């Protein structure tokens, strides 16, 4: 009775099934990302009180922190998908890994830019060679390396597997970024939000942050689904199900 989950997952890894699945979920993900994003923006920029030390400048964390979380989360997703692609040779996993890379790179870039904007006001410098900043920069280079390696192959699938291997090598960096503020005594502040135990952040500031985190997650899924659908169509362009979709488009 309980084996419907593996069966369903197995079915989902077939490109036409995933294409339809992603097509159904994508509008919902976009809508949720928009609504949650607007609510979080209102909560963070209007409702939350100014910080007693940083005034209104701290409000950039409502973009910075969720982006930083996403930059690591997406790398982890990419690493897991690349591992699945290399071990079980599932085509969908290759596509998911490679479609994640540009989104993750964008979030990493946003993290670095917002961080340096905040740093210019608070630390008095745009950039400092601090452990967390440097490791986040290395993360950006890893993303760019994966993207560049993927595009340097003529055969998409081979490029995806090769770039996936590079992504797996780079997974070493994810814990380094995450724990850098604990391992080294850095300028960057430690984390104030904990899964276990009480967070050291006021709840009026916490809820917009968590809402924004959910919004970025939904945005990631919406963007990922769109990219995966387009890639699947390109990859399977000779197959029957793609031809059927094309014919339906023409008829309409």
């Amino acid at each position, binding site marked *: 009775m309980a084996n419907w989950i593996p069966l369903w997952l197995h079915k989902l890894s077939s490109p036409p099934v995933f294409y339809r699945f992603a097509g159904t979920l994508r509008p919902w993900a976009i809508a949720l990302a928009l609504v949650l994003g607007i609510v979080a923006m209102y909560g963070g920029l209007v409702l939350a009180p100014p910080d007693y030390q940083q005034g209104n400048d701290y409000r950039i964390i409502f973009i910075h922190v969720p982006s930083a979380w996403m930059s690591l989360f997406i790398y982890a997703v990419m690493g897991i998908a690349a591992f699945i692609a*290399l071990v079980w040779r599932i085509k969908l996993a290759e596509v998911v890994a490679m479609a994640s890379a540009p989104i993750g790179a964008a979030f990493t870039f946003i993290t670095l830019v917002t961080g340096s904007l905040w740093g210019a006001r608070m630390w008095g410098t745009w950039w400092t060679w601090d452990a967390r900043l*440097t490791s986040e920069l*290395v993360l950006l*280079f*890893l993303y*760019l*390396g994966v993207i*560049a*390696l993927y595009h*340097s*192959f003529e*055969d998409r699938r*081979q490029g995806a*597997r*090769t770039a996936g*291997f*590079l992504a797996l*090598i*780079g997974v070493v*960096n994810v814990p380094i970024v995450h724990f850098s503020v604990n391992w080294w005594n850095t300028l960057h502040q430690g984390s104030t939000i904990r899964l276990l135990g009480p967070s050291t952040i006021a709840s009026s500031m916490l809820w917009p942050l968590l809402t924004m985190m959910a919004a970025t997650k939904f945005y990631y899924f919406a963007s990922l689904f769109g990219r995966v659908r387009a890639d699947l169509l390109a990859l399977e362009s000779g197959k029957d199900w793609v031809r059927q979709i094309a014919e339906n488009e023409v008829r309409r």
Partner: protein
Amino acid sequence: MTDTRRPGLGHACMAVLRRDLTLAWRQRGDMVLPVLYALIVTSLFPFALGPEEALLRRIAAGAVLVTVLLAMLLALDAMFRSDIEDGSLEQLMLAPQPLALMLGMKILAHWLATAVPLIVIAPLLAGMLHLPPPVIPVLLLALLLATPLLSLLGGVLVALTAGTRRSGMLLALMLLPLCVPVVIFAAGALAAAQEGLPWIAPIAWLGAALVLAVVLAPLACAAALRIALDS
């Protein structure tokens, strides 16, 4: 039943090593290029920063380290190129001996042919930038541990780009993030030595990383090559 005509593992390793070293020696001009490159880059620093001795002494260790790294990056591209072009790498992949071991030998040969000349010339580079003589043994030790580490990491990445046409810039983009820790520890040891502080801890870290890489990198290199060339 053992086949007596099949060469043993040690024999095969030596054969690969001897072949690669002979090939490198026959093209001595290519071996000299990274050394010339390092000399030119080092001689550019005094022009760019001004010839003040105090300033040069402060940047000398780091400048030599980065110069050697870039010179190695220049030569890295060629590690498997001729073998892919003439098909001998595919023969190596089909050979009964474990591919990882054979690739390890190829990386060793590449290190002997490109990094050792750079290490030999490193005291001269350091002297050009007025590095204090007591620091030079530490520099050599750091380079002796850091360059094989770079060769091993580079070998994995070269294997990944084996199936592509243009790989020079790509290799730099991929290698530079991975070699950040190597540079940090090597530079840490040199900075400590220059200040007269104990420098053994970062050197020990480099050694530990090298041991790890010697075990894992050839395996990763073999896996990467099988992925990149399988079509």
